[in-house]
């Protein structure tokens, strides 16, 4: 018995000793190799093959392809939006990463906290509204894609009922619903949108339930501001139609997806890293801004539209016109007169809502049923 104990003891000591001996993998503290830029990414979930984080993963892959050996990318996935985020971002900064992309809204305060401790590191927070000397923010005009969705939905619906699944009643989601309503109204004055709040960004079960409720209530075109393909899968099964979110989801619903609004972060990442390498990185103006110093949409290719499918050519043509209209600036989605769904005038004809007003939206425009919760 004694022998066994001794043997095991030796084994463990040996193993641990060997591990210490292997001490080569330690992250070098702020050691900069010439011309190689170290880039860090923080993900909210594992990328998987669809949705929000996958879109960032695709952007990261574009970065790797574009810069090749000139960048070294480190990724941390599945980071909850709290103290863990602070720790992970700090570790990335300590590990010598020169620019760190934090890709979820909830990383806002952790990013700012760490940025204060590392004034030489650049931080890029996605979808936040707080900035500092070395924290820039970036966001996408997701609502532009939703206007086109509204156009297509208005032309495709037979029941004139549109089912919309919202994540949380925050300005970003509400402006998406309202943009959809504007698109809808431009082609079909009779259709209405009914909204179900899933109160989650990602929960396939809840999203599927919401889709079933919409279909049971007569909706034949569905839209979503949540992240899973569950809604499209239900639509596929029930013979309804819908739109993909964040990434192309036609693989999940080949007969139901009309098109998907795709978040295209790659060009933005590449631009910011290039700026950093040329010493031109900046945060734009002002410390506190509703949407960040870069709020790009269809025009800047930060939002792209997948192939129009499962629709007649005339509809696809109308959709293309809307797409072109937004790109060229011919269509201003929130141009007056805008009237909310209680009949109150938001803005008169001849004027248009500015970006700040979009981030203050807490009302539905005409065409949407019900009222904003909270």
């Amino acid at each position, binding site marked *: *018995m004694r022998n*066994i*104990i001794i043997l*095991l*003891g030796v*084994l*463990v000591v040996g*193993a*641990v000793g*060997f*591990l*210490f001996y*292997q*001490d*080569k*993998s*330690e*992250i070098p503290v702020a050691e900069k190799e010439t011309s190689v830029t170290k880039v*860090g990414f923080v993900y909210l979930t*594992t990328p998987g093959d669809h949705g929000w984080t996958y879109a960032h993963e695709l952007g990261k892959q574009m970065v790797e392809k574009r810069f090749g050996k000139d960048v070294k990318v*480190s*990724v*941390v*996935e*599945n*980071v*909850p*939006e*709290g*103290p*863990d985020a*602070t*720790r*992970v971002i*700090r*570790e*990335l900064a300590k*590990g010598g990463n020169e620019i760190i992309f934090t890709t979820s*809204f*909830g990383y806002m*305060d952790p990013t700012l906290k760490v940025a204060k401790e590392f004034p030489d590191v650049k931080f890029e927070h996605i979808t936040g*509204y707080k900035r500092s000397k070395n924290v820039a923010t970036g966001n996408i005009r997701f609502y532009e894609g939703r206007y086109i969705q509204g156009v297509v939905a208005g032309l495709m619906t037979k029941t004139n009922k549109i089912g919309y699944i919202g994540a*949380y*009643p*925050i*300005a*970003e989601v*509400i402006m998406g619903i309202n943009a959809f309503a504007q698109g809808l109204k431009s082609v079909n004055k009779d259709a209405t949108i009914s909204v179900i709040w899933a*109160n989650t960004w990602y929960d396939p079960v809840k999203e599927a339930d919401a889709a079933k409720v919409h279909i049971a209530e007569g909706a034949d075109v569905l839209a979503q501001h949540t992240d899973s393909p569950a809604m499209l899968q239900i639509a596929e099964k029930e013979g309804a139609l819908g739109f993909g979110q964040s990434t192309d989801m036609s693989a999940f619903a080949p007969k139901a997806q009309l098109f998907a609004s795709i978040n295209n972060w790659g060009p933005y990442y590449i631009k910011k890293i290039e700026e950093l390498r040329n010493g031109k990185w900046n945060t734009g103006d002002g410390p506190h801004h*509703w949407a960040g110093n870069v709020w790009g949409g269809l025009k800047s290719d930060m939002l792209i539209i997948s192939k129009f499918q499962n629709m007649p050519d005339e509809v696809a043509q109308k959709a293309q016109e809307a797409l072109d209209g937004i790109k060229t600036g011919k269509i201003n989605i929130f141009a007056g007169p805008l009237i909310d769904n209680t009949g109150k005038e938001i803005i008169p004809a001849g004027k248009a809502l500015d970006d700040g007003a979009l*981030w*203050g*939206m*807490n009302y539905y425009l005409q065409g949407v049923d019900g009222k904003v919760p*909270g």
Partner: protein
Amino acid sequence: MITFIPRVKVSKNWVIIAPILSIVFTIFFGLLIFTFLGYNPLETLYQIFVSPFSRIDRISDILVKACPLIIIGTGLMLCFKSNVWNIGAEGQFIMGALLAGFIALSFPNIETKFFLLITILAGFVGGALWAFIPAILKTKLNVNEILVSLMLVYVAMLFIDFIVRGPLRDPMSFGFPLSKPYPEGAIINKIPFPGIGFLGQLHYGILFVFLLVPISWIFVNKTLGGFKINVLGSAPQAAKFAGFKQNSITLTVLLLSGGLAGVAGVIEVSANIGQLQPEVSFGYGFTAIIVAFLGRLSPVGILFAGIIIATVKLGADNAQMTMGIPKVVTGLFEGILLFFLLTGETLQKYKIKWSEGK
């Protein structure tokens, strides 16, 4: 059929060998899996177990991560020792944080740190109140506390969600679900070290752990209350004969564990977040159940168990940052570790008998 038969005498040698064997097996299977998946196995083990200790600020990060686990685990220990199954520490954590947050936000200009005593007390009360629901249902109506405490977790999650989207939402947050920042008096500061500055996130809340562990050790081992809990858990009949009031013990341990979970919530939010948000806990209340058992339901054991779990979690992040190993793989490794540790402990207390069962 497999049956577990308690060993009459637990061998002294095996008390030492079992955990060592568990670790050897874990490392062996870890090496196997990492090699199989194409990662340098030794470097991976290094990242998971050693790298979290490789810098002093990383060690302090371990303490920060372990802090709520140890506090909640200690409370759960009291419950589990007396055969009361509180599975809802997560909810009690949230309600503690929420009540304390409500009080903190009600005094937006307060600066004195003595205010922390009030918020921590509020956290205790919040957590204890949430645990009081399963407690009273259990003692008055004999309702199963596992189900009630677990289901109340989801109620608590939805409740804090509602609160930060509605009543306590910061009007300056552009509609995002965040409360206003806490006043200075409700913030637990980071500990400044002369000449070094701050070490990671290390904050004064850690001191509570260093108070709690000895106090709970004394309570469990040296007081009548602790004795009653031990007896009730290991020999309910004896406790009955001795005239211990089972209901009052059940009530006490649930309130204590709920209260401690609530305090953990206050410390976590006041030290690391500084405002209320929809998610404040990230599963601490559930992980602490593992910590309590891994620590063999003893205060010192829980201290170490909390540190082990925190180390592996941080190590998993490091492995990902330096080697790009996905979280699922390191999660698998965590699972192996727990499996062998708990198996080792079980086999040391029980013999396995295989029989032809029907």
